[in-house]
């Protein structure tokens, strides 16, 4: 192996940094968009043709741009926000814009799974739209939301690997610069094992949490 273990350890930290920060902001963005997509749709509690008509295509557009292209396309915006277009922190902006809309679709699905009867009961007892979201929809969808976030996190790990293209660092970057470009198969193997371990760990945590919340043992 042509890389030191220090390089690998640094790369792990970089990946964790990119994943956690972009997950945090991406989840906030995705949550807002996802809830908006649900409640403004036709026949829902805050039905609004205009807002739904704007948000829905925007989410679709971001969902359909391949991450590697998004990465390059928004370089000016990235520079505006973090002052530089290169580096680990700079990778966070495209990561958030990539994962936010993705999370919003997952959250939308989770919320739509909630039985309409629940909303009906909420309306019948005089709950306001805000109360319906906070006290009925979200608690009922919570286990499913956890699974959504798990899926998103795993998607994010994949995306951070590509962030290496703009010098984002992380495990993926090591795999490409040392493993691929210098034909170091051992490094490729090690990075792949680390990524697989990451994904396994996150999926397991997600599953355990979800089962706990649904009270199945």
């Amino acid at each position, binding site marked *: 192996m042509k890389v030191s273990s220090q390089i690998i350890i640094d790369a792990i930290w970089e990946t964790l940094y990119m994943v956690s920060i972009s997950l945090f902001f991406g989840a906030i963005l995705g949550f807002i968009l996802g809830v908006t997509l649900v409640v403004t749709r036709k026949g829902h509690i805050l039905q609004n043709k205009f807002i739904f008509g704007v948000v829905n295509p925007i989410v679709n557009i971001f969902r359909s741009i391949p991450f590697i292209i998004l990465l390059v396309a928004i370089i000016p915006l990235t520079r505006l926000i973090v002052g530089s277009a290169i580096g680990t922190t700079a990778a966070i902006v495209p990561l958030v814009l990539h994962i936010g809309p993705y999370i919003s679709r997952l959250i939308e699905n989770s919320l739509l799974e909630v039985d309409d009867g629940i909303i009906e009961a909420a309306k*019948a007892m005089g709950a306001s739209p805000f109360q319906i979201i906070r006290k009925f929809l979200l*608690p*009922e969808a919570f286990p499913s939301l956890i699974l959504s976030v798990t899926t998103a996190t795993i998607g994010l790990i994949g995306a951070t690997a590509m962030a290496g293209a703009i010098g984002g660092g992380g495990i993926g970057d090591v795999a490409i610069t040392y493993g691929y470009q210098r034909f170091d198969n051992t490094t490729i193997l090690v990075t792949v094992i680390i990524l697989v371990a990451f994904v396994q760990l996150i999926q397991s945590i997600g599953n355990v949490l979800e089962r706990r919340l649904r009270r199945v043992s």
Partner: protein
Amino acid sequence: MIEFKHTTKEFKSGNNTVRALYDVNLMINKGDIFGVIGFSGAGKSTLIRTVNLLEYPTSGEVIVDGKNLVNLSKKKLREEKKNIGMIFQHFNLLNSKTVFDNVAMPLSLDRIKRKEIEKRVNEVLQFVGLEDKVHSYIDQLSGGQKQRVGIARALVTQPSILLCDEATSALDPQTTKSILELLKRINEEYKITILIITHEMEVIRDICNRVAVMQNGEVIETGDVFEIFSKPKTETAKNFVKSVVHDEIPDSVYEQLQKSEYSGRMYKLDFIGVNAGQPIVSQVAKRFDVDVNVLFGTITELQNTPFGNLIVELIGEEVEIARAFEYIKSKNIKVQEVTTHEGELTDHHRCDLGNVIHG
């Protein structure tokens, strides 16, 4: 009190319009257990949903306790909804919460003190008989228990009206009975007006005092439950009554009559609102020199009065039978003889010879 005045509701989807309610006029008095019955798609759910404005009428009015809710502000409307409890066919409870939290939900929407919430929730859970399930989750309960939670949740705001949309349709007959008894208790002890939607005549029979029959969005018949059961006017109402009071004469009765060696006479007695304490069969047997065999019968109870029919066989001297017949008639019971002609076994129409005794 709920009053429907020319209430009409149309659903538009694309180019076609479904008229779910058409010019409904109904008066539901305070303290009523008012039943609405009709086949699927008749508009029953739409009707009940206009009461708490889950559905807005297209035209006409729905007046609840003297107020037309359509005219209220959003805030006032939410306030008013606390006065109208509702329970559902599929319970619509939150699986993520315990029984306590489900029942507490309507209260927790307002800023009510935790102490007060606890007191009210425990009280109402006691009333519905679920005090030992306070901390259970919904998926740990049976259907009947779930509906009790639904009822507790509806009662916790101390409403004056309770709406039930097919509240027992997902339950087995035994559980249905117990839920209906609970509804009756609610009506009696809390003086809550109950509007109940169903497609089962048993529900109407067991707890309602008044009933409306719906078809194609219209109320086609309305009246006291007794009235509808004894004198249904429309074909739909007749069919619903038949579903609980079978007044057809079974084939085996005709078969028996056809046997050449058979010497008795058969009569069909219709009880409609006759004094419950009247043991007519034993009285006839005692007073006259006849043997009385009860062959068939459906007797149900409508507001504590027997209602239904009996097919009895009277065996004895013609004279005695004739006297017994007159006696039964004098007791305000509709009585007719069951006769048959050869080859008419399956002809079930009521015998027109009914009130004539030959021979």
